[in-house]
């Protein structure tokens, strides 16, 4: 029974009737790196949240070294040797490294904190892990990767037996990734079990011992890494029904609509010399690794970033998109990546959320807003996009992620845009709702709107775009015809400007 350090057995969890996890398993051996894979929405993070007591499972059991347990919160888990290093680091950045590591359990000497003991303990901890940082540095002087290492060290200082790393490399440079892997290997040699969550295939093959794959809340399988190759993992993750995940592309790209010439941003992260053309009714995908400048590119087009140089032409006429207001005036719309922080007004109702970008056009004769036409337009949007809601008065925070996204797309459609910039339009949305968003995007393109869509999900780019532009380290690495390309070509383009640049940046 003690084969496994951590066992998760027959875990199930539903949210409002939808099964997010259906009888899934995970078994992690001591001294191994166990990769947990699956597309966004496959149930990985729900599984982890159940493990850490943030969600209560409907059924299923957890075992640590053969003992059954149920953690009540992350702190309880931490004290029992199970910890998680989150993508968003939860740290007190104004304080020093050792203050953060020993927070909540400072060593004392009489009435005072024993700074010397704390410093010494931090040094010993870092020496064990091969981390070269002065514990007296403040966290806000560190890079993200260094802060991450501090967080890992903190987990180790709690005598962690299991450490969960959630997308740990998403904002690291190649060099930093290598340092992280060194630490992971040290932890493994100390007998720690590591659950590694990542989308990056090369990392999975470099660092893992075993891989468990989830798909749509189902357990697909666990295999030793030796028995796997990339194709096999992708098959497990995506399944065979890839063809049915996307609606047919019925839009037909026409003449050139927008021409972008040598766009370069003024402040970092830098976009350098990006030029391309967008056809009317076309869906142009933007691919690239995290940090390649995809979001920054659409923000630059929309005037949310300051340009150093470069021009934008619409139908051959040069336009000025230096601010968001001007861009909206030029019939641009930007759907932001972070729906929660920059898109939603959570406590406001659907009407407010739908009409806020276009509120000026609802002014009546004496400048007061016309509630009736606002309500009418909102109801039209609800019908057209099949938004599931009891009424237009509902607070938007009560809708599901997919329906929230539809409301926000609807908001921009009410401004009657010509060019839609969509940044990760299906992030955090369940599979069924994704299909509807795809259909919506294709319909818009068919009506003659031109769409630029940023996505980190390769299948959806290949599934619904006409062409894909690949960004690499702030530059355009190439544009490919979606019908004629494959994942390897896109991946190679994404790496194009990465090799020399990391050194150049340092």
């Amino acid at each position: 029974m003690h084969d496994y350090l951590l066992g998760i057995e027959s875990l199930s969890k539903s949210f409002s009737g939808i099964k997010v996890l259906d009888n899934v398993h995970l078994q992690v051996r001591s001294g191994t790196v166990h990769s947990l894979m699956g597309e966004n929405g496959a149930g990985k993070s729900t599984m982890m949240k159940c493990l850490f007591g943030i969600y209560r499972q409907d059924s299923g059991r957890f075992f640590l070294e053969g003992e059954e347990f149920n953690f009540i919160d992350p702190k309880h888990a931490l004290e029992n040797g199970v910890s998680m290093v989150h993508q968003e680091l939860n740290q007190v950045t104004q304080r020093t490294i050792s203050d953060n590591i020993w927070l909540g359990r400072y060593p004392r000497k009489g009435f005072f904190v024993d700074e010397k003991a704390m410093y010494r303990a931090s040094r010993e901890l870092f020496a064990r892990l091969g981390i070269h940082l002065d514990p007296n540095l403040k966290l806000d002087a560190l890079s993200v990767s260094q802060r991450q290492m501090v967080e890992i060290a903190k987990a180790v200082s709690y005598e962690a037996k299991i450490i969960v790393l959630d997308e740990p490399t998403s904002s690291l440079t190649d060099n930093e990734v290598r340092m992280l892997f060194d630490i992971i290997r040290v932890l493994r040699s100390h007998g720690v079990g590591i659950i590694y969550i990542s989308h990056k295939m090369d990392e999975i093959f470099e660092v893992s011992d075993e891989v468990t794959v989830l798909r749509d809340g189902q357990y697909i399988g666990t295999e030793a890494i030796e028995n796997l190759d990339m194709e096999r993992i992708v098959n497990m993750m995506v399944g065979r029904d890839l063809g049915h995940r996307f609606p047919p592309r019925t839009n037909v790209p026409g003449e050139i609509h927008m021409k972008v010439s040598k766009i370069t941003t003024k402040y970092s992260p830098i976009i350098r010399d990006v030029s391309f053309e967008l056809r009317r009714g076309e869906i142009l995908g933007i691919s690239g690794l995290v940090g390649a400048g995809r979001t920054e590119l659409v923000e630059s087009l929309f005037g949310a970033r300051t340009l150093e140089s470069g021009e934008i032409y619409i139908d051959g006429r040069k336009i000025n998109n230096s601010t968001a207001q001007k861009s909206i005036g030029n019939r641009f719309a930007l759907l932001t990546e972070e729906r929660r922080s920059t898109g939603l007004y959570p406590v406001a109702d659907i009407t407010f959320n739908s009409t806020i970008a276009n509120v000026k056009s609802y002014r009546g004769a004496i400048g007061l807003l016309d509630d009736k036409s606002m309500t009418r337009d909102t109801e039209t949007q609800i019908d057209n996009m099949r938004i599931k809601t009891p009424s237009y008065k509902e607070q938007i925070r009560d809708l599901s992620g997919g329906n929230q996204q539809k409301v926000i797309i609807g908001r921009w459609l009410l401004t009657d845009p010509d060019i839609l910039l969509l940044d990760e339009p299906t992030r955090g949305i369940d599979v069924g709702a994704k299909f509807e968003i795809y259909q919506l995007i294709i319909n818009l393109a068919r009506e003659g709107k031109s769409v630029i869509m940023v996505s980190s999900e390769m299948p959806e780019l290949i599934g619904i775009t006409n062409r894909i532009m690949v960004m690499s380290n702030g530059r355009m690495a190439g544009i490919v015809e979606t019908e004629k390309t494959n994942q390897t070509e896109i991946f190679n383009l994404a790496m194009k400007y990465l090799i020399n640049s990391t050194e150049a940046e340092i």
Partner: protein
Amino acid sequence: MAKFAHKLRTMTGRQWMDLLVQNAIYLVILAIILTIIILDPRFLSLRVLENILTQSSVRLILALGVAGIIILQGTDLSLGRMVGLAAVISASLLQRQDYAGRFYPNLETVPVLLPMLAAIFGTVLFSAISGWVVAQFKIHPFLATLGMMTVLYGVIQIYFDMGAGGAQPIGGHDRFYTAISTGRLVEFSAGGTRVGIPYLVLIAATVSLVIWVIWNKTVFGKNMYAVGGNPDAAKVSGVNVMGTTIMVYVMAGILYGIGGYLEAARIGSANPSTGFGYELDAIAACVVGGISFSGGIGKVSGAIAGVLMFTIISYGMTFVGLEQYYQYIIKGVIIVVAVALDTKKYLRRV
């Protein structure tokens, strides 16, 4: 030193700019002081220095109280009324036996420090309630202490009306009480006047030292910075967020109690409007001294610098005969500029 000089020589224009921005508020203050000295060189005297330090003392003690709360991402509007409460309690218990309008006509002479404890008891009680309300109900400290400010005014009035002397300021202080605010530890002649080290300055220095130790050397102090910097991180690391929050308010209460006790002695009387508006001076001094409203950042030295700056500026401007109304304008501008510069340090351009 050579290293420093080398660094200065090799700095780029951008780095110079950053250095200027980081220290701009100090440069502005320096410029104002220099202007004052040029206008009236007599400003550079021991007598003036003593006055400035004395006037800063009570303000500093109060500023250190609210500083802890600001570090917790909060603020305290009730500070002025806390001072009023402590002042009225202290003064009412420390009147001369031969004074005509005594608050407690039959009260024997009490040891001079005892009323301070009574005052502290009062301010700690109410400040702890504020802290509990903030921590328990997650009410923004601005609102919680706005409520407390109003409550306290009522409490002070009720207490004041209980006095036998009727509705008149509580004056005629015991000579030992007065001595605390006017006495000096050592005295000597300089430039024709007697100067020395006032007790008030010694008390403020001792309080600053104790607070420095608490903030920097104790678990409570470190927890205060952690809760202020990132409450969620503190919570998952097992810090008692509620206990820490209440303790910070209790500490503030202690300092308000001391401050109010000294303020009544300094002024020579107390009435319900004693301390009115002091919270704004204290908060402004903290902010100018770099104690950030975004929480988790702030030093004792910052509070000292902030308080001294304001005192120097107002004393200096009065010294050269600038009308008070102009002083208000200058002080107001300094507050806003200080905050703008502070924010600029953290601003990211896109």
